């Protein structure tokens, strides 16, 4: 069995030691979100995740969702758990108080999402998608649409979906064929078409499902500029808010897939379904973009969440499993063998997992604090700065955190030896579950293109400067501190090379877009590793000052992991920089037929 206890001490470290979450309570609307509120909410959320959601993770994977005559059933226990979750108000955490929400910060929401995904990622998909639908309507809906749909999405009695993908298109949504015909009344359309891979598209957890559907208004412009966004409820909603007749929305089947088996992934057929235009006609993609950052950060967090569960479980196993003797001599002569944690190779794996997971969480917290500032800071310049920073870091978080999660969960299996491969232990499930995070919400290769093709050149490199300037300043201020050299120097060096390749990629990419495309994935990873290196250096600085206190062991763990990062993770950038410099030629010269 896997092990999971919410890493509350880690959260406190991030919120109160590495960053200052107290700053959030100074933003208008967040007055109640004081550090002690964070603590209490996280503690209560932890109980629910550990005691209710986590025990359903393995059984949910074994049982999966079932489909019969258009009806989808979630695994045993999910409905009861969902009811507890929603009655506990957890679907309302980040939502607008005007519609029954708690109005708490994104930073808190993300930590709760992490706990939920660590405990049971499949379960988290349902409220996760609802939150996406909530945000779309909140941002772009008319007053009447908000009144009609938001309160029920907020209290969780209805859920939501995002219907983008079709059989012929996932990445390239310009090819969407689902069409919308004006139904006579202003803003009302008849939606017809087939969507595939729709998470939470049909299930038995809620009374109604509010689909957000991308479709093309008949006669609109071709390609991506002709796509509009619609609200299409499973049951029509009467003016008094009650449920009316079933809409023309049917689940055609569910997918049988590698992981997140308790999350229903549905084919959804729309047949002249009544839909309501959300936002402006033909501007559906732009509307989607406003929600993309939070959704992509959320996927990055799913990755880190699974890495955490894998780490906690593998750490325990490595202490318990007796196998082989320490190379330098027996550590536990009275036992038949030493615990495998004595072996350098096992430590390499555990430390990689720890460095990835804790570094990822620091990166995610840094960005989520910016998300709160971008929404609430009264100073427009501060909002712009935060917005730029989020735009820059989002593709990095989405892609690097999920790539690392797959690596970390895989190491988890390795530490378990043959037992990692056996279902009963739960380690292989983490690998399977984590795999999807690299694909949906924009495949990781697409994230890299977003970074290199959109974010890098945007506003003449202004987004890049939101990262480069503060990091540069921080490093420079510490050049004279001998005790920090082992951290500052390697980060400084990698940071310098990152700036060089940034110029190189920008320049070569301008002349030949394939050059930018060829460098993109490795550039994103190098950027992410440098960003995480910077945070590990900051963590080391804090830990150095606290080694003598009550929690020496905790800070020793931080310091040793920072050292491991500098010695054995950050150097990966060396290879990446070489690959980036190698350019597109070796990728592009082979004709497709020759593969």
């Amino acid at each position, binding site marked *: 069995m896997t092990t999971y206890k919410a890493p509350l001490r880690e959260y406190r470290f991030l919120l109160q030691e590495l960053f200052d979450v107290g700053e959030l309570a100074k933003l208008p609307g967040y007055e109640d979100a004081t550090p002690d*509120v964070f603590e209490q*909410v996280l503690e*209560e959320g932890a109980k629910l995740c550990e005691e209710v959601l986590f025990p359903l993770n393995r059984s949910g994977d074994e049982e999966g969702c079932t489909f019969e005559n258009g009806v989808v059933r979630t695994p045993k226990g999910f409905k009861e758990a969902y009811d507890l979750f929603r009655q506990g108000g957890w679907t309302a955490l980040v939502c607008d108080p005007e519609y029954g929400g708690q109005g708490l910060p994104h930073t808190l929401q993300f930590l709760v999402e992490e706990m939920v995904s660590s405990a049971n990622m499949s379960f988290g998909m349902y409220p996760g998608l609802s939150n996406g639908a909530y945000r779309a309507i909140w941002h772009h809906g008319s007053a009447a649409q908000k009144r009609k749909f938001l309160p029920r999405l907020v209290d969780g009695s209805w859920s939501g979906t995002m219907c983008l993908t079709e059989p012929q298109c996932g990445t390239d949504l310009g090819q969407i064929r689902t069409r919308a015909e004006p139904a006579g009344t202003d803003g009302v359309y008849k939606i017809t078409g087939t969507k595939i891979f729709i998470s939470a598209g049909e299930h038995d957890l809620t009374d109604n499902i509010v689909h957000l559907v991308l479709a093309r208004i008949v006669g609109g412009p071709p390609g991506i500029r002709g796509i509009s966004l619609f609200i299409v409820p499973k049951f029509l909603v009467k003016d008094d808010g009650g449920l009316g007749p079933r809409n023309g929305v049917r689940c055609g089947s569910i997918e049988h897939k590698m992981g997140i088996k308790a999350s229903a992934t549905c084919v959804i057929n729309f047949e002249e379904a009544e839909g309501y235009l959300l936002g402006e006609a033909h501007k559906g993609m732009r509307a989607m973009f406003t929600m993309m950052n939070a959704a992509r950060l959320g996927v990055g967090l799913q990755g880190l969440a699974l890495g955490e569960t894998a780490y906690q479980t593998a750490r325990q196993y490595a202490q318990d499993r007796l196998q082989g003797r320490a190379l330098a001599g027996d550590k536990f002569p009275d036992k038949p063998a030493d615990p495998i944690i004595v072996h350098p190779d096992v430590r390499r794996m555990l430390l990689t997992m720890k460095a990835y997971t804790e570094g990822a969480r620091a990166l995610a917290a840094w960005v989520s604090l910016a998300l709160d500032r971008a929404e609430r800071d009264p100073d427009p310049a501060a909002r712009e700065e935060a917005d730029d920073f989020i735009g820059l870091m989002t593709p990095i978080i989405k892609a690097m955190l999920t790539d690392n999660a797959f690596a970390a969960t895989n190491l988890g299996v390795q530490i378990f030896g043959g037992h990692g491969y056996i279902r009963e232990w739960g380690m292989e499930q983490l690998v399977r579950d984590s795999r999807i995070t690299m694909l949906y919400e924009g495949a990781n290769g697409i994230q890299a293109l977003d970074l290199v093709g959109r974010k890098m050149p945007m506003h003449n490199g202004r987004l890049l400067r939101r990262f480069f300037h503060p990091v540069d300043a921080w490093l420079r201020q510490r050049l004279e501190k001998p005790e920090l050299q082992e951290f500052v120097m390697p980060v400084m060096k990698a940071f310098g090379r990152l700036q060089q390749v940034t110029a190189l990629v920008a320049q070569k990419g301008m002349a030949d877009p394939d050059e930018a495309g060829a460098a993109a994935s490795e550039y994103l990873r190098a950027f992410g590793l440098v960003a995480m290196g910077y945070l590990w250096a900051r963590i080391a600085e804090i830990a150095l000052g606290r080694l003598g206190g009550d929690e020496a062991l905790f800070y020793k763990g931080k310091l040793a992991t920072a050292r491991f990062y500098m010695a054995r993770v950050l150097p990966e950038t060396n290879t990446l920089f070489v690959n980036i410099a190698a350019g597109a030629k070796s990728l592009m010269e082979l004709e497709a037929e020759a593969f």
Partner: protein
Amino acid sequence: MKILVPVKRVVDYNVKVRVKTDGTGVETAGVKMSMNPFDEIAVEEAVRLKEKGIATEIVAVSLGVAQCAETIRTALAMGADRGILVETDAELQPLAVAKLLAAIAKTEQPGLIILGKQAIDDDMSATGQMLAALLGWPQGTFASKVAIEGETITVTREVDGGLETVALALPAVVTTDLRLNEPRYASLPNIMKARKKPIVTMSPAELGVDPAPRLTVVSVAEPPKRKAGAKVASVAELVAKLRNEAKVI
């Protein structure tokens, strides 16, 4: 009717406790602390009595360091109405706690005091009984079921070998056993509302109680490590070993 619920801040039940190297106690620095699980059951029972319209107000009391306010907040989030924190850095033993609670009971005049049958840190199982004695109130300890009718509370007690049912005249002291109920998860709105509920802080001196320990801890040690077992070839050998070596049969 007003209900008083004492709640104790203890090392979380998930924590693997370690004895301090100097043998004076267990390590609590940097360790996760939570409400004593038996006290959670007490709070839950009080909240249910309020939901049934039997109780009108629930007062959560905690005694100890300033951080005990967090434990009170948890009780408030579950449904208690206000809190009293008796703040002291002194080590508190059951008798001192019982005296302090008795002093609070005299001013608060609750109709019922519900508390955990024991705390999972020292497992004393003494505070409730001492409190009842100090107040001169009837006590129903180890409750697995309670029912209030008029001025009487019927308590089903878990005793060795079965269940015993007692009827007590209110006001009374009840201590909770594990099977009394399953505590709820505090909801997010209730956590937020709890922030606005009042907590009054007072000192042992204000209550006229000297909390100084009456017992001295001589030493705290880890239980002996389990020794490796031995395999025997036959039942006869097992019986012989049990008789001659272990001397248990």
